[in-house]
């Protein structure tokens, strides 16, 4: 495969992440879009095409969400596309934006992700219920957290992992989020707090899980020539990967996300990465649940199977550790507006590699970063590798 052109991220924008925002979905998208354009130093007229991403229409409660939000995403009289891979959408948006530019067809592409989950009443859980098979699962009254609970329990059982080891992820991420100005659930908590929190679906407890959130994120991508004119510090997209596993969650290995590994291998190959834990300086790993960060670190080959909890316990994944994971605070701390949460991770890597992450900055001048999201019917991995 020959990639014709280099593509860089040159600007990023993010809204507050909150349980309920007054802004309409379009207004939220606009706030992120405007900030991304301003930080890139361009105007809407300079944007040649737009890629937007959002998870199911059922959250915002507007069918044709892509079209309904088009003005907030800068999609006025421009080539405009919505991409969708469920929860993996946030990282798939910059991947799709990347190919728009890498193909040579466009020089500047705006990428926007939005999710407003608060309209769905009484709780978005009801929208999640309808993603399940109407014949085999829904008659049972299936609840989304069941699946995660089964997966988490399987992961614990297979490798002999204790709940207190998993809880450390929640403690770390919520503490990291204390330094994030957009964060919804930043907190100084202890492992005991997690273990004493309300049991939702065992072994998933209240503090193991990310919140319901409204929010939006946006980035600007540019071709090499244009990027170099716009900024002295472009962040290059050097690897992209995505992979979908079986449609049946009963036909997947619950203890190990093979599809994340395939997605990561695709991105690593493209970026020329042979030893991920050594060559990745900072990673934003999808963490809607605390165990998912560990699960995904292993799928991304950043830890050996069953060993991510050990790295976490040793402090390797702290901001000042050898392999900082989720210095933003992740979904557990910053919040989880589904598609926007994934793109928030890409924004964080952009800021980390530019040395612009402020109090969240990981030390040691990181040069290579990774962001990953996961979703669809709990079976997709989307991965992006970026370099300063």
């Amino acid at each position, binding site marked *: 495969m020959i990639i014709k052109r280099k593509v860089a991220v040159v600007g990023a924008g993010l809204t507050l992440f909150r349980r309920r925002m*007054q802004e309409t979905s379009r*207004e939220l998208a606009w706030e992120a879009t*405007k900030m991304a354009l301003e930080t890139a130093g361009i105007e809407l007229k300079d944007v040649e095409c737009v890629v937007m991403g959002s998870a199911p229409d059922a959250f915002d409660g507007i069918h044709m969400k892509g079209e309904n939000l088009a*003005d907030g995403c800068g999609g006025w009289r421009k080539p405009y596309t919505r991409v969708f891979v469920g929860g993996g959408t946030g990282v798939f948006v910059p991947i799709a934006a990347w190919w728009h530019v890498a193909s040579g067809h466009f020089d500047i592409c705006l990428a926007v992700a939005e999710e407003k989950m608060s309209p769905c*009443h009484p709780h978005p859980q009801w929208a999640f219920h309808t993603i399940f098979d109407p014949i085999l699962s829904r008659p049972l009254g299936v609840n989304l957290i069941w699946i995660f609970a089964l997966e988490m329990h399987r992961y614990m059982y297979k490798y002999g992992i204790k709940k207190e080891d998993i809880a450390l992820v929640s403690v770390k991420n919520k503490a990291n989020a204390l330094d994030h100005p957009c964060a919804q659930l930043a907190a100084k908590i202890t492992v005991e707090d997690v273990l004493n929190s309300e049991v939702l679906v065992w072994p998933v407890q209240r503090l193991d899980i990310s919140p319901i959130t409204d929010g939006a994120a946006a980035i600007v991508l540019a071709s090499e020539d244009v990027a170099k004119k716009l900024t002295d510090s472009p962040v290059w997209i050097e690897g992209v990967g995505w992979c979908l596993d079986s449609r049946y969650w009963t036909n997947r290995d619950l203890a190990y996300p093979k599809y994340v590994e395939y997605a990561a291998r695709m991105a690593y190959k493209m970026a020329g990465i042979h030893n991920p834990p050594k060559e990745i300086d900072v990673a934003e790993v999808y963490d809607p649940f605390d165990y998912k960060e560990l699960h995904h670190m292993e799928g991304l080959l950043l830890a050996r199977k069953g060993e991510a909890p050990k790295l976490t316990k040793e402090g390797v994944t702290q901001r000042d550790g050898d392999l900082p994971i989720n210095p933003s605070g992740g979904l557990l701390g910053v919040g989880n507006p589904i598609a926007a949460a994934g793109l928030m991770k890409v924004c964080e890597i952009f800021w980390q590699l530019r040395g612009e992450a402020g109090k969240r900055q990981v030390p040691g001048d990181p040069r290579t970063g990774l962001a990953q999201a996961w979703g669809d019917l709990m079976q997709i991995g989307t991965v992006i590798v970026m370099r300063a």
Partner: protein
Amino acid sequence: MSLEKIRDPERMRRWPGHMETDYVYTVGLAGERFFREIKDNGKFYGTRCEKCGITYFPARTFCERCLSELKEWVEVSPRGYVEMYTIAYMDLEGNKLEKPEIWAFIRFEGVFGGLVHKLGEVKPEEVKIGMVVEPVLKPKEQREGSITDILYFKPAK
């Protein structure tokens, strides 16, 4: 295997389901003021983008062409004209309406945009394209800050 001959789906092996979800939508930043003006003062407002020289109606928070924040609120005359109209004989579920409804796209002078709304106090055969119309609002104490505070538009005097 085609099931076309089976007219009654209840005769198949089945599981009945539904995908209903309930929603509460915020009217948003611009909507908050736009609907408050109708509710409290019976007035229509648009927002102006100086850069693009456009006044959007109904009022918006930002300009779709340049993404500028729109801070200039402009009162818009509630008298509009019928750009186009249609007559509905069936309701949302395909039932015949007792009385046909006239639905019109109404534009207003000096602004970009308009409203789709119902026409009242006029017979279908009397409606003309370009006809000047004005809104009939609910009594003030019954208004709740929504598009249904406007009952319909009627021919202007």
